[in-house]
């Protein structure tokens, strides 16, 4: 069940020594880039004496990456670069990430390691419904699956009826899909007369690239009759493959032979004691083209205590709770969209899709949640709708400490997305 037994189960003390060696090598490589040549100028040639000493080094943020566009972070001769990826930025310079042949090989290997740990084998058929292109989600899994030796269908997202046709006629057993798209796709089965549990051979889904609740995962598992594994990554590190759930589905093993994690308080930047929730900061240990030191991911999580029964020694992070910049402040109360999703999905009469809007009304923040109905439970009376509306308000108020306005809407009133679902619209504008 291990792709690389000795690395995945390396004894903790040995793993930490290994990490320190890699971290010093990574720092030395990083200093060849214009940015780190300056930022790490005062670092002694001998490197760090302990991993803990990383704490003394400055953070790298998305704004530095943008400022360093295009080559400020490149640590190798441009000739050695074989690929570029870019993260979805809507304003300013994009953040670009370069890869050498070695970086690509390492990345493929990490994805293969992840897939293998959940039971994917050569005989499987893998349908990759994640976007290809500059986005790392599709391509990362594509090459990882090929490395593992699985037949890979590079279908990409969208065109739902064709997706289902492939699932059915090629006997697809493994999919990689956005959680929101998995739910959207499920809406097509009734009209096609297909029962995914009975008519398809699916057994494993990889879901990631957007924060989702445990309830959503369970829903996907139930609809399709498979096991869904959470994957985590970001293009700045490589893409997917940074952390991954094992068969136990209890936290994501962060591959510590490639990345060194720290958890900090997003406001003060102070390192938090192990087990506390904060922002994940990562240092690349093996990347060649573009090493990143103490990169602030913006993702909120915590490191789970104790070893995992699967035998892997790499520490686990909890599912991503949200991004530090996703946090909504409603009349002074902090909340995360994922809390709303978790609450909605626990109410059977609520459908799969929802939308959150925040606006100013008479100088106060108003949180509006639009939900669709679960058809399977809808009996067709007005009374049940009034009851449902009241229940959603009450449960959200209990979870958030903020009283929302809840609207029941038809499915057509909610945007349908086949890419990353945008579910939060902050319409307050400016500094409000």
């Amino acid at each position, binding site marked *: 069940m291990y792709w690389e037994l000795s690395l995945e189960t390396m004894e903790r003390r040995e793993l930490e020594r290994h990490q320190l060696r890699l971290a010093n090598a990574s720092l030395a490589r990083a200093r060849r880039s214009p940015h780190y040549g300056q930022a790490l100028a005062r670092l002694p040639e001998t490197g760090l004496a302990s991993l803990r000493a990383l704490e003394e080094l400055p953070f790298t943020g998305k704004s530095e990456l943008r400022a360093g566009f295009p080559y400020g972070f490149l640590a190798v001769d441009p000739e050695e670069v074989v690929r570029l990826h870019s993260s979805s930025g809507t304003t300013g310079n994009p953040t670009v990430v370069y890869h050498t042949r070695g970086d690509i090989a390492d990345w493929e290997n990490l994805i293969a390691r992840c897939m293998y740990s959940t039971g994917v084998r050569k005989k499987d058929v893998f349908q990759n419904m994640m976007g290809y292109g500059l986005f790392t989600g599709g391509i990362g899994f594509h090459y990882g699956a090929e490395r593992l030796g699985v037949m890979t269908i590079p279908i990409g997202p969208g065109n739902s009826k064709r997706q289902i046709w492939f699932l059915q006629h090629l006997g697809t057993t493994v999919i990689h899909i956005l959680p929101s798209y998995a739910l959207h796709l499920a*809406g097509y089965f*009734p*009209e096609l007369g297909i029962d995914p549990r009975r008519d398809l051979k699916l057994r494993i889904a990889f879901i990631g690239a957007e924060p989702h609740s445990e309830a959503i995962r369970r829903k996907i598992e139930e609809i399709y009759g498979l096991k869904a594994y959470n994957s985590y990554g970001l293009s700045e590190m490589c893409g997917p493959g940074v952390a991954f759930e094992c068969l136990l589905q209890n936290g994501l093993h962060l591959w510590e032979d490639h990345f060194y994690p720290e958890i900090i308080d997003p406001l003060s930047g102070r390192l938090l004691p192990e087990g506390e929730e904060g922002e994940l900061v990562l240092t690349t240990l093996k990347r060649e083209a573009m090493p990143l030191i103490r990169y602030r991911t913006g993702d909120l999580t915590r490191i789970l205590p104790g070893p995992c029964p699967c035998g892997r020694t790499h520490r686990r992070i909890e599912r991503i709770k949200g991004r530090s910049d996703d946090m909504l402040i409603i009349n002074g109360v902090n909340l995360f969209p994922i809390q709303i999703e978790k609450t909605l999905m626990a109410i059977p009469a609520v*459908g799969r899709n929802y939308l959150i809007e925040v606006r100013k009304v008479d100088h106060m923040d108003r949180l509006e949640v639009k939900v*669709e*109905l679960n*058809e399977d439970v*809808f*009996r*067709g*009376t*007005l*009374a049940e*709708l*009034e009851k449902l509306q009241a229940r959603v308000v009450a449960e959200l108020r209990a979870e958030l400490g903020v009283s929302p306005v809840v*609207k*029941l*809407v*038809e*499915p*057509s*009133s909610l945007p349908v997305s086949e890419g990353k679902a945008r579910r939060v619209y902050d319409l307050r504008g400016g500094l409000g």
Partner: protein
Amino acid sequence: MSVQLAVFLENHPGKLESITKALAEAGVNIRGFSMASEGEYGVLKILADDPEKAYRVLKERHYTLSRRTVEIALIDDRPGGLHELLTTLSSRQINIEDCYGITLEEGCRAAIVLDVERFPEAEAVLRENGVRLLGEGEQL
């Protein structure tokens, strides 16, 4: 007993029309309907000549809807007709969740659509009291 469709609708201009249009295009005849509304949203009940087809047509257009079993009682269109029917049910403590009437074209009979609790019992009571109920698949 008959099948009635209940469609969830937001209250916006044109919503109702989009449903009647879809059904008309599919050649489904609407025999009766009623709309219960709360302000922001409502439930449209439709009696169609072909409920299964109507269900499929609306489902394909991604409406949220359900099929509900109702009784359709045919009563004489004269003073007291409806009162007798309702008394029959209330005397047995059977609640009516929803009800609406349709006057049939010839003007001498009316059809009352009854959404009642305790179905089989309600049906038996009405039959005992000589109320003519529309059978399954029987058209108005």
